[in-house]
C-alpha cells in the first residue's frame, strides 16, 4: 500500500510538471501569435504586387520594397557562397585533420565563443577591415562578407557537430578498405553530414537575414531607388558583376527606416515589410526542418 502511495505521489509530480510545461509552452507560443497577429493586422492588407515591385518613395502609398528584398537576396547569396565553403572546410579540418592538442582546443573554444559575439561588433570589424583597410565601397560585396563573418562560426560548429554524429566504425570501415583521409571525407563524411550542415547553414542564414546593425555600421543606405544591372544578359559581355559593387539596402533596414517616420502610413508599410521578412525567415526554417527530416530518414546508423 505504501508502494501504491509512492507511485501515486510520483504520478502527481509527473502531472504537475506536465501542466507547468504546457503553461510555459503556451506563454511562448502566445507571445509569438500576438506579435505575428499584430503585424498581420497592420500590414497584411498592404502587401500586394505594387508593394513588392516598387522602389521606396516619399509617398507611403507609392513606396515598395523591391530594392530591399532584392538587396536581401543578393547579400544572402554573397554570404552563403563565401561562408559555406570556408566554414565547412574549417569544420572538417578541425574535426578530422587537426591534431588533438592544446592549440586546437584553444581554437575550438574561440570559435564557439565567436558565435556569441554581438553582431554589431562584426559590423565594426568589417567597417575597419573591408571599408577602411581594403578600400571597398559600401557595397553588396562588403555587406555579404560582413554577414559571412557573422555566420562563419555557426557554420563551423554545425559542420563539426554533424561530423561527430557519424560513428567511428564507419570511418574505420572506409579506412580499412584503403581510402585516404580525403577520400573518407569526400566519399563518406561529407555526404553523410550534408543534411546536418545544410540545416545549420539555413538556420544561420535566417539569422543573417534579419541582421540590421552590422550592415548599418558598414554604411548600408536606407533609400535605394535603383536595381543593379542583372547578372546575366542576352548581349555581350553576358555577365555582369556590377551588383557586387553597387550600394544596397536590405529588408530590415528598410523596415527600420519606415518605423522611424512619424506618419502612420509608413508604420503600415513597416509592418508589411516585417511580414515579408518573417515569411522569408519562416520558410527558410521550414526548409531546414524538412531537410533534417529527409536526411534522418535517408542516413541511418
Amino acid at each position: 500500500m505504501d508502494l501504491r502511495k509512492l507511485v501515486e505521489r510520483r504520478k502527481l509530480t509527473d502531472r504537475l510538471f506536465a501542466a507547468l510545461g504546457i503553461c510555459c509552452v503556451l506563454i511562448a507560443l502566445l507571445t509569438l501569435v500576438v506579435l505575428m497577429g499584430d503585424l498581420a493586422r497592420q500590414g497584411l492588407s498592404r502587401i500586394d504586387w505594387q508593394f513588392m515591385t516598387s522602389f521606396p518613395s516619399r509617398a507611403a502609398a507609392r513606396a515598395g520594397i523591391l530594392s530591399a528584398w532584392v538587396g536581401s537576396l543578393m547579400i544572402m547569396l554573397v554570404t552563403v557562397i563565401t561562408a559555406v565553403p570556408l566554414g565547412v572546410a574549417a569544420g572538417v579540418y578541425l574535426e578530422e585533420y587537426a591534431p588533438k592538442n592544446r592549440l586546437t582546443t584553444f581554437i575550438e573554444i574561440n570559435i564557439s565563443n565567436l558565435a556569441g559575439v554581438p553582431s554589431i561588433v562584426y559590423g565594426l570589424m568589417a567597417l575597419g577591415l573591408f571599408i577602411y583597410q581594403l578600400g571597398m565601397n559600401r557595397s553588396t560585396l562588403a555587406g555579404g562578407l560582413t554577414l559571412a563573418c557573422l555566420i562563419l562560426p555557426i557554420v563551423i560548429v554545425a559542420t563539426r557537430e554533424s561530423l561527430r554524429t557519424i560513428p567511428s566504425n564507419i570511418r574505420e570501415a572506409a579506412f580499412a578498405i584503403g581510402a585516404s583521409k580525403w577520400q573518407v571525407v569526400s566519399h563518406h563524411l561529407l555526404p553523410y553530414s550534408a543534411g546536418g550542415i545544410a540545416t545549420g547553414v539555413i538556420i544561420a542564414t535566417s539569422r543573417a537575414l534579419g541582421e540590421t546593425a552590422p550592415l548599418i555600421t558598414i554604411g548600408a543606405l536606407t533609400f535605394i531607388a535603383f536595381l543593379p544591372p542583372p547578372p546575366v544578359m542576352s548581349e555581350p559581355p553576358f555577365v555582369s558583376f556590377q551588383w557586387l559593387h553597387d550600394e544596397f539596402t536590405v529588408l530590415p533596414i528598410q523596415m527600420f527606416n519606415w518605423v522611424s517616420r512619424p506618419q502612420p502610413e509608413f508604420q503600415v508599410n513597416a509592418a508589411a515589410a516585417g511580414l515579408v521578412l518573417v515569411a522569408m525567415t519562416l520558410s527558410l526554417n521550414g526548409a531546414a526542418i524538412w531537410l533534417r527530416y529527409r536526411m534522418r530518414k535517408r542516413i541511418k546508423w
Partner: protein
Amino acid sequence: MNAERTAITHADPASTPKVSPRVVGPFKAEVRDVNFYYGQFHALKNVSMPFVDKRVTALIGPSGCGKTTLLRCFNRMHDLYPGNRYEGEIILHPDQINIISPKVEPLEMRMRIGMVFQKPNPFSKSIFENVAFGLRLQGETNRRVLADKVEAALKSAAIWDETKDRLQKGARDLSGGQQQRLCIARAIATEPEILLFDEPTSALDPIATSRIEDLIDSLRGRFTILIVTHNLQQAGRIADYTALMYKGELVEMDKTVAMFEKPSFKLTEDYLTGRFG
C-alpha cells in the same frame, strides 16, 4: 574426458616451442618479435608466429589479451590514432615486406589486406556502392567490370540471392546477419591477400552465425584468413590453426585439432577447459 586431460603430463615450458612444428608453410605472413604499445601501455609482448597461406587461423584468448590489437597491426589500423607504436616485423610473403615498417604505406596494406569488424558497419549507401567502394578506390571505373565484380563478390559472400533485386537500395536496411555478409563481400571484392575477421559473429544470432561460418569455410583456399573469436567451438569448427594469447603474449599455436586434443601447455589446457577466461 576431463580426467583423461589432467593425466597428461605437460611439456617443459622452457624447452617447448610456442609454435608447434606441426605448423608448416608455405606461410603468407610471419609475425616476428612484435611489440605494440598504446602510448605507455605495452599491449603485445614479443609475439612471434606464422600464418599459413590460404588457411584459416583462429586467435583465441581471454578478453583484453591483445587479439584485436594483433589483428589491427596487419592493416595498420593503429596508424589512425596518435601515440601508438609498433616494434618488430610482420613479413608479408611472397614480397617479403615488413607490414609494420614506417616505410610501408598503410594505404597500400589496407588495399591488400581486408578487414571485417565485430559490428557490421556498412556505409549508408546502396548495397552496390558498398561493395564497389574498394574497387573504385583501386581505380576501376568501367561500369561493366564494376557490376561483374560486385556480383561475384556478393555471390562469394553468399548474399547474392537476397540482394540481387535491391542492389540500389540502402545497405542499412538489411538485417544484421545480411549486413555482416555484405561487409564480407565488400572486403573480398578487391581480392585481398589476407582477410582479417574480428569476432565477426559476436553480434549475431545462431543462424546468422552459422551462415557466416559456412561462408568463411568456403573462403578457405582462396584467402589467408585470421579470425578472432571468443567461441571455442567456432574455432574448432572453422580454423585449421589456432593460437592462444594471454596478457599480450602468444601462449601456444598449433593445428586446431592437435591443440584441442592435447595442448602442450598447462595454460592452454586451463583455458580450453574453461578454468579461466
